[in-house]
């Protein structure tokens, strides 16, 4: 009945079934192209998604540290006051002192390790075991340190020959954050004799606010010379996401080569078909088919090939997407997210478009042959 409403489609469909194997192989090219584009696209999306998940909420963090190239070795109390002034009232500003000390755990040999002095670690960290605040003595250790040396609240470690009691083991931090405590040993800032700070963390409520604060700090502290660096994780995240976008585009570009090949194979199949059906097309022209009618029938064939290949490709891509998301993100259903739909849709559209474009030349060739010449053979 479809033939009633779409007679060109009827003829096209029948013509394709005439050489089933050939049509199948031609649309197999489109299938592969669509699957390649869609699944590489979805792979990129999954990669980006799992990266963002690992990254956590770091876009609102700033780290201010001195520019040793300008012989600034530490941040002064005044610098810290300036930073507090530039930061918004709700922001957390944590100045940090560091020094390297020989540390030994459980009477093992001492190794040199950077010790962090933080005044109020309760602003930055949560305890996994024990209590972070109040923090006047003792030490906090990150989860990796605790695990490596079997440390718990109450355990003793030795820092520079002095025995110190562990007060808490800290929760794991975000992998890319500069405040990540996992590998750190933290002691009260008051135990440091030096007055300057080696860095300061600023945590704002939003990424935008963090960006403004970063600019304010740079303006105030780098007035005459580049005294400090301000590292914004937010812009780092942006950069990384841009990189992912580029990688995705390149992947999709590579995948489209397979569609190009598919297009050439459709071109070839259609050209063969126009040569084989030269007389038939001549008859169609003789019995009153206009050039554009012949064009329509031939293009319909190419479009059908593209549609068949495209639909099969989309189904296979969804399967591939389920697998990719299952392994990369750990949630197969993540395949039904918007960016994936975009890639699948674009792959389908490109597949159909490729077929139509490839059909154009053969269709034009068939349509513009003089019926007298076609029928002479």
């Amino acid at each position, binding site marked *: 009945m479809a033939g009633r409403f779409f007679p060109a489609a009827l003829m096209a469909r029948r013509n394709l079934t005439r050489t089933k194997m050939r049509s199948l192989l031609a649309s197999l090219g489109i299938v592969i192209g669509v699957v390649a584009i869609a699944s590489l696209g979805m792979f990129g999306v999954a990669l980006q998604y799992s990266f963002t998940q690992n990254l956590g909420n770091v876009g609102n963090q700033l780290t201010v540290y001195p520019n040793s190239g300008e012989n600034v070795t530490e941040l002064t109390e005044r610098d810290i006051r300036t930073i507090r002034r530039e930061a918004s009232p709700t922001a957390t500003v944590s100045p940090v002192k560091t020094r390297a000390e020989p540390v030994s755990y459980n009477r093992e040999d001492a190794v040199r390790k950077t010790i962090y002095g933080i005044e109020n670690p309760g602003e930055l960290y949560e305890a996994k075991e024990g209590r972070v605040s109040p923090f006047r003595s003792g030490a906090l250790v990150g989860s990796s340190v605790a695990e490596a040396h079997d440390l718990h609240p109450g355990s003793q470690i030795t820092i520079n020959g002095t025995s110190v009691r562990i007060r808490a083991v800290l929760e794991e931090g975000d992998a890319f954050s500069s405040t990540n405590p996992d590998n750190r040993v933290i002691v009260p800032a008051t135990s440091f004799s030096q007055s300057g700070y080696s860095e300061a963390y600023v945590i704002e409520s939003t990424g935008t606010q963090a960006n403004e604060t970063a600019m304010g700090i740079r303006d105030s502290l780098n007035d005459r010379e580049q005294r400090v660096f301000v590292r914004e994780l937010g812009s780092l995240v942006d950069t990384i996401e841009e990189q992912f976008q580029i990688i995705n585009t390149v992947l999709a570009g590579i995948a489209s080569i397979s569609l190009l090949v598919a297009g050439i194979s459709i071109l070839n199949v259609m050209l063969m078909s126009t040569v084989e059906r030269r007389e038939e097309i001549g008859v169609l022209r003789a019995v009153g*088919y206009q050039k554009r009618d012949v064009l329509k029938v031939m293009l319909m064939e190419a479009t059908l090939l593209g549609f068949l290949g495209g639909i099969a490709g989309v189904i296979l891509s969804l399967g591939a997407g389920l697998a990719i998301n299952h392994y990369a993100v750990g949630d197969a259903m993540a395949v039904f997210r918007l960016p994936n739909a975009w890639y699948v849709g674009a792959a389908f559209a490109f597949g159909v478009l490729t077929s139509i474009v490839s059909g154009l030349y053969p269709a034009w060739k068939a349509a513009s042959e003089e019926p007298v010449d076609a029928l002479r053979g």
Partner: protein
Amino acid sequence: MTVIDAQGLVKRYRTGGQTLYALAGIDFALEAGEFVSIMGPSGSGKTTLLNILGLLDTPTEGTVLLEGQDVTGLGDSKRTALRKRTIGFVFQHFYLLPTLTAVENVEVPLLLDSDPQVKKRARTLLERLGLGERLDHKPDELSGGQKQRVAIARSLINSPKVVLADEPTGNLDSETGRQILDEFRRIADEDDVAIVAVTHDDLVNEYVDRTVHLVDGTIGRERKNGG
């Protein structure tokens, strides 16, 4: 009533500096309901004449009037539209589409019009030609004679004024050829359709009103049949 009136038809081809005359001045008129055969040796210009009468080709000189309208200088798309409306074609090799059934093949000329009446008319035509039992058969399930009947039904689907046949019996045995010629005769008489058949087959001449002999692109002797 004169359906086709062609005057002073000349068709020249230029090949490699030589000028070949396929037709060298031919006058040809065709009345409604007339069944005419065109005979002549190969290269005498039969097919060229048929192509020009069927608006598939244009003459180098001369005029063609189709139902009184000058169609000589028309462009491809206008000629195509006129073919669709007034002319039917039957070919020696039938040229049915192998993927379509008998009925669908008959529908082909009007298939893109999406007119629901066409299918009914196609069935009626096939039934009239004795193929009522074979409506949904594909061409490879039909004999040569049956294929040619399908082709004739196809040539009639647009209720043409003229049917042009190129060697319509050329691929058929003489018994089947007679049946096909009977059909042509009947169509000319009953439907008042003019039929021109280009042929080598003397059998055809038993059925036609007159025979035109072509020799080297000109009209030789013309013989009128009594029938």
